[in-house]
């Protein structure tokens, strides 16, 4: 192995040539980065990627460099491995301020979290790519979470599962490859086993007879009124073997569909209201005559019973959704004059096709039962904060249900740490609002120690907090711009955020015209209001909203109101009332200006530092209005060691709103709604 092979793990295989050297140089001068956890974290750390000649890529497919900012949590680490695996070679890893994630190869370049380090690291990276983009024998990247077992199944006989491709021993059809493994497939597996169970009892030599026999069997139990039709049906089957074969094929596929949709059905049922739940019966999907009042498995085939609402039953058996019931009866009445049930027999006996497939599927508002698709958005999705994993169930491009989890949630069950360390740790754990949490920790510890607030110190602290609020809101604006492909906004807000972060009072005052013009332009940008107005409106009676989200819906919720220091600074709360994304945007505009006023009065911002404490034991509680809303920290310290911590943050509350906000929305609207909450997944406590 040559030396070059060891320097860039993600190199492509190839001997040096002129073209390859050019390519390497081109790659080096055209760094496109996939930022993990996300570009907003890099910005919050004060990193200006554009200044380092780096372009932010939206997907791993378009990235050369995997740029990791800060320490990653275990879950994010795994996601990063997936992203890395999906990047085309040549690819490089750049780690800033943290250890290289365990699931990835050794970082190609690592540096500290600062702009100068970043610039220097970029140069090193460029040299590396220019020289080593191609290597003699690069290693494959593999990780346990990337593994998938491929198995081969017969489309008609789901019980046939082989490790090798080939043909089905029962029907001779070519086996179809399918990937097993991964949690999303687990449900499908169970289902297949059930089928296997069912089929074991029968001999498959007489497939066709068997099929029709079984169907007749269905009939007999199922209903008594269909006798003549049953006869008719039988006839058809024997007359046309080819046809029976087709049906069987339908059935095979139907099973496949069923297996596939099983989890979605569950969703549908979860969605159903409590009233619906109360009268539920459980029936076997294969043997409708099996009915129980409680869940369990079918005594005939062992399949899991599926819940059914009794009133719904008739409709479902006819393949008609409940709410179209009347309509359907009209229809068949007109056409058939009393032959209501003919098509019913038809469906349930021979044609395991669309009606069977769709009858149990949940339907959207317009009554069409389509396949629902569970799609992950995040943890590294360009339009959402990094670390936030949003899973949306899509019905076309509409969202039927959504769920947000944080992969970087803070873990408060801490071992004993020294107070100083605790402050540093807490601040480092919240990359999007480090000052606020530093302040929070300082205050809580000081309170535990019985220290009275010192107005002189508090002034500087308040200024620092307000400065961070401005920067944080600007960061949100940049993120909004990224989400909406609003390039101008992203550029402008990001530049202002970088300037604000380290600015002193004078510099902040000097930024006022720039901020004012940004806000004025935004409020008059065509399309922006149409885009945001009415999106993400919170349901009435949403409990425990905080921060700008609360104030945008007219709540007078602000921890700063209770603060004597802020009263002295002349703080006055202003609130929007509409409670939608547009109101949140305007609320943040207002708050940027309010904070600017406060800083102007309060003086130079000073980073919160722990004052000298004389009594290192006790219990303290502090509340700070962080940029995202009120956060409360309760802690106990003993002899200078923090022993127990309890954190109540705004984002822990807000993340629960996501499910309500996205339900029934168009995909883009749902994402804007989630974005408008300005969630920081770090500030979610687990």
């Amino acid at each position, binding site marked *: 192995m040559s030396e070059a092979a060891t320097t860039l793990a993600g190199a492509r295989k190839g001997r040096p040539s002129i073209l390859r050297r050019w390519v390497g140089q081109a790659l080096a001068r055209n760094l496109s980065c996939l930022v993990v956890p996300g570009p907003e974290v890099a910005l919050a750390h004060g990193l200006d990627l554009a200044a380092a000649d780096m372009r932010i890529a939206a997907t791993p497919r378009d990235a050369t460099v995997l740029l990791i900012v800060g320490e990653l949590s275990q879950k994010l680490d795994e996601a990063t491995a997936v992203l890395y695996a999906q990047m085309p070679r040549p690819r490089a890893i750049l780690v800033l301020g943290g250890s290289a994630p365990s699931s990835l190869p050794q970082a190609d370049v690592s540096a500290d979290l600062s702009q100068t380090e970043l610039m220097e690291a970029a140069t090193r990276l460029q040299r590396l790519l220019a020289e080593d983009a191609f290597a003699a024998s690069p290693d494959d990247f593999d990780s346990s979470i990337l593994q998938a077992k491929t198995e081969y199944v017969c489309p008609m006989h789901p019980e046939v599962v082989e490790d090798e491709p080939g043909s089905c021993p029962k029907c001779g059809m070519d086996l179809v490859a399918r990937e097993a493994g991964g949690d999303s497939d687990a449900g499908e597996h169970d289902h297949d086993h059930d089928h296997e169970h069912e089929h074991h009892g029968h001999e498959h030599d007489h497939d066709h007879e068997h099929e029709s026999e079984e169907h007749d069997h269905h009939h007999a139990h199922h209903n008594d009124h269909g006798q003549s039709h049953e006869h008719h049906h039988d006839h058809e089957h024997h007359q046309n073997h080819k046809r029976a074969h087709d049906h069987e094929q339908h059935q095979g596929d139907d099973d496949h569909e069923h297996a596939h949709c099983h989890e979605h059905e569950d969703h549908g049922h979860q969605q159903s209201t409590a009233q619906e739940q109360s009268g539920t019966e459980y029936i076997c999907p294969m043997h409708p005559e099996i009915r129980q009042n409680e869940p369990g498995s079918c005594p005939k085939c062992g399949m899991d019973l599926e819940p059914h609402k009794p009133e719904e039953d008739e409709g479902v058996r006819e393949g008609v*959704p409940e709410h179209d019931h009347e309509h359907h009866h009209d229809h068949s009445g007109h*056409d058939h004059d009393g032959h209501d049930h003919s098509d019913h027999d*038809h469906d349930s006996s021979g044609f395991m096709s669309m009606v069977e*497939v769709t009858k149990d599927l949940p339907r959207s508002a317009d009554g069409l039962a389509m396949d629902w698709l569970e799609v992950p958005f995040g943890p590294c999705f360009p339009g959402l904060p990094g670390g936030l994993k949003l899973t949306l169930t899509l019905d076309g491009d509409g969202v039927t249900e959504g769920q947000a989890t944080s992969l970087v949630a803070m873990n408060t069950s801490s071992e004993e740490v020294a107070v100083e360390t605790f402050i540093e740790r807490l601040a480092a754990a919240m990359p999007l609002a480090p000052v606020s949490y530093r302040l929070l920790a300082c205050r809580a510890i000081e309170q535990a120690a019985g220290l009275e607030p010192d107005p002189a110190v508090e002034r500087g602290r308040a200024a620092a907090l307000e400065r961070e609020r401005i920067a944080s809101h600007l960061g949100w604006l940049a993120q909004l711009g990224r989400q909406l492909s609003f390039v101008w906004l992203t550029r402008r807000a990001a530049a202002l955020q970088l300037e604000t972060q380290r600015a002193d009072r004078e510099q902040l005052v000097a930024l006022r015209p720039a901020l004012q013009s940004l806000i004025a332009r935004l409020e008059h940008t065509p399309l922006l209001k149409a885009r945001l107005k009415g999106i993400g409106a919170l349901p009435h009676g949403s409990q425990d909203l905080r921060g700008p989200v609360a104030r945008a819906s007219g709540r007078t919720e602000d921890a700063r109101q209770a603060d004597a220091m802020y009263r002295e600074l002349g703080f006055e709360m202003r609130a929007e009332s509409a409670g939608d994304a547009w109101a949140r945007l305007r609320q943040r505009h207002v708050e940027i200006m309010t904070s600017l006023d406060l800083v102007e009065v309060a003086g130079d911002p000073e980073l919160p530092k722990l004052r000298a404490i004389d009594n290192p034991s006790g219990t303290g509680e502090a509340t700070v209005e962080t940029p995202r809303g009120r956060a409360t920290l309760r802690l106990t310290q003993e002899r200078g060691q923090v022993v127990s911590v309890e954190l109540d943050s705004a984002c822990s509350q807000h993340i629960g709103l996501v499910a309500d906000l996205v339900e029934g929305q168009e995909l883009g609207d749902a994402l804007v709604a989630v974005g408008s909450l300005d969630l920081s997944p770090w500030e979610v406590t687990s």
Partner: protein
Amino acid sequence: MTPVLILALLTGAILFGVGIYGALSQTNLVMIMMGVELILAGALVNLVAFWRFLHPEVYAGQMFVLVVMTVMAVEMAVGFGVAIARFRAKGSVEMEEAGDLKG
């Protein structure tokens, strides 16, 4: 010269045959409409060939082509409308399940 006309007519005839096959053999309403579209395409080829090689001075031939194209579009609009209604009511557009459409 005649060969081109014959060639076009042959193509039209075969498209017509393929369309008939499709319309008859498919079980799904939408697929049946595909067959119908092919039948109409065959008709269009014939119409244009007749216009071009027999009566290029009679523009009613071209007008006729426009009308057939309109029929194609109209057929699709109504067909899909029916398909949507049918799917909404029954959860299927398979013709074999369309007992109430066949009567």
